[in-house]
């Protein structure tokens, strides 16, 4: 049986742990709200962009723009979006599982330190790694995306896919691999996009005019779209990160509270046993003396 002093020491350390996890839970909760708001604020923008692509879609042939051309896939390009810090439950581990399932030759770009470390540890072909702050501004995400688009256009990678934790709700985040480039079939692509964004129909039946020209607008819109799309995925990943961390910290806090209850009970029992022992000893001494 451990002494009361040992138990007291453990109680103290568990209390500290509980305090820390509680603080981290609160921090994650407030960051989560911000991240969710940011992910939601991007929605009207995404919808409008889908509408514009939809307007262009009938004018676009298969091979009109390099970003649309489908090639034989020899080397996949994977953008792995992970967190910078740990303590967020199984979030990163689930992403890594998806990565280990890739059997084809692939080159990787990582956003987030955890992913970079994992890729280095498993000796995969890492082209670059980036870190993005919690705010995940458009310009921060633009750099890795433009880096990948450049490689895609140069032909050193034949696809661009994003592996990220998709935000479903506070409790559920799923690891998803989403193909982004090539945007091989614009029409299919636009229709899924519109279904996702819930876009409306056009009211005007007249032929749409494009200025300076349909090609020029397309050439400007597509790279912009790719940037914006991946930015939205990263925002979703950030929301996932914060909610996963909040849930993990809440579990840790609850466990600490439970452990604390058990330890307190044990401590009181040990204390009571000690007192009983002392009384017995005194009584025995008094009895033998008389």
């Amino acid at each position, binding site marked *: 049986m451990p002494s009361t002093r040992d138990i007291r020491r453990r109680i103290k350390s568990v209390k500290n742990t509980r305090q820390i996890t509680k603080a981290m839970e609160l921090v994650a909760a407030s960051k989560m709200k911000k991240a969710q708001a*940011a992910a939601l*604020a*991007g929605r*009207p*923008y995404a919808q*409008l*962009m889908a*509408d*514009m692509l939809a*307007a*262009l879609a009938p004018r676009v042939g298969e091979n009109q723009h390099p970003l649309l051309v489908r090639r034989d896939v020899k080397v996949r390009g994977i953008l792995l979006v992970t967190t910078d810090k740990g303590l967020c439950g199984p979030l990163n581990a689930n992403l890594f599982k998806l990565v280990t399932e890739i059997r084809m030759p692939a080159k990787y770009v990582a956003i987030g330190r955890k992913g970079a470390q994992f890729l280095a540890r498993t000796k995969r072909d890492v082209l670059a790694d980036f870190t993005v702050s919690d705010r995940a501004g*458009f*310009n921060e995400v*633009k*750099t890795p995306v*433009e880096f990948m688009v450049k490689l895609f256009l140069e032909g050193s990678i034949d696809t661009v896919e994003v592996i990220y934790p998709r935000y479903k709700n506070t409790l559920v985040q799923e690891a998803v691999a989403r193909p982004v480039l090539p945007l091989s079939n614009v029409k299919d692509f636009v229709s899924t996009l519109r279904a996702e964004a819930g876009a409306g129909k*056009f*009211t*005007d039946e*007249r*032929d*749409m*005019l*494009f*200025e*300076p020209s349909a090609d*020029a*607008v397309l050439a*400007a*819109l597509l790279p*912009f779209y790719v940037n*914006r799309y991946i*930015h939205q995925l990263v925002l979703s990943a950030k929301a996932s990160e914060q909610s996963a961390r909040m849930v993990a910290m809440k579990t840790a806090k609850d466990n600490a509270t439970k452990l604390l209850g058990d330890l307190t009970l044990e401590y009181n029992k040990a204390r009571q046993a000690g007192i009983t022992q002392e009384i017995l000893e005194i009584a025995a001494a008094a009895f033998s003396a008389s």
Partner: protein
Amino acid sequence: MPLTLEIVTPEAKVYSDTIDSVVVPTVEGEIGVLPGHIPLLTQVADGELRVTKGGATSWLAVGGGFAQIDGDRVRVLAEHAITEEKIDENTVEAAMKRAEEELKAAKTMDPQQYEHLQSLVRYSGVQLAVKRRRR
């Protein structure tokens, strides 16, 4: 029949109202839009966007994007947009100066950073022009 104008940036919906007419800065020059305009999809340049509503004109500074005119709906997709009242001259000026200095100081800079700073300077200039136009 009035027009509806929506201006959307990645961060938020900046403007949404029914208006009489709007002048949009595009890469081909300014275009004025009145009700009944032909459907149009065009590229928006950095510049000032003029909105007329009930005889009163208001200004917005917009930075690069696209505009779609469909029926009586004008929708602008911009990287930045800010209404005239919200422009704070001092902060914009400071930001512009900082970006300009960074541009001058750095001889070798990666092209993306360079481009970002340049667009910052350009957009700051537009904001100042919008803010100061009525003096």
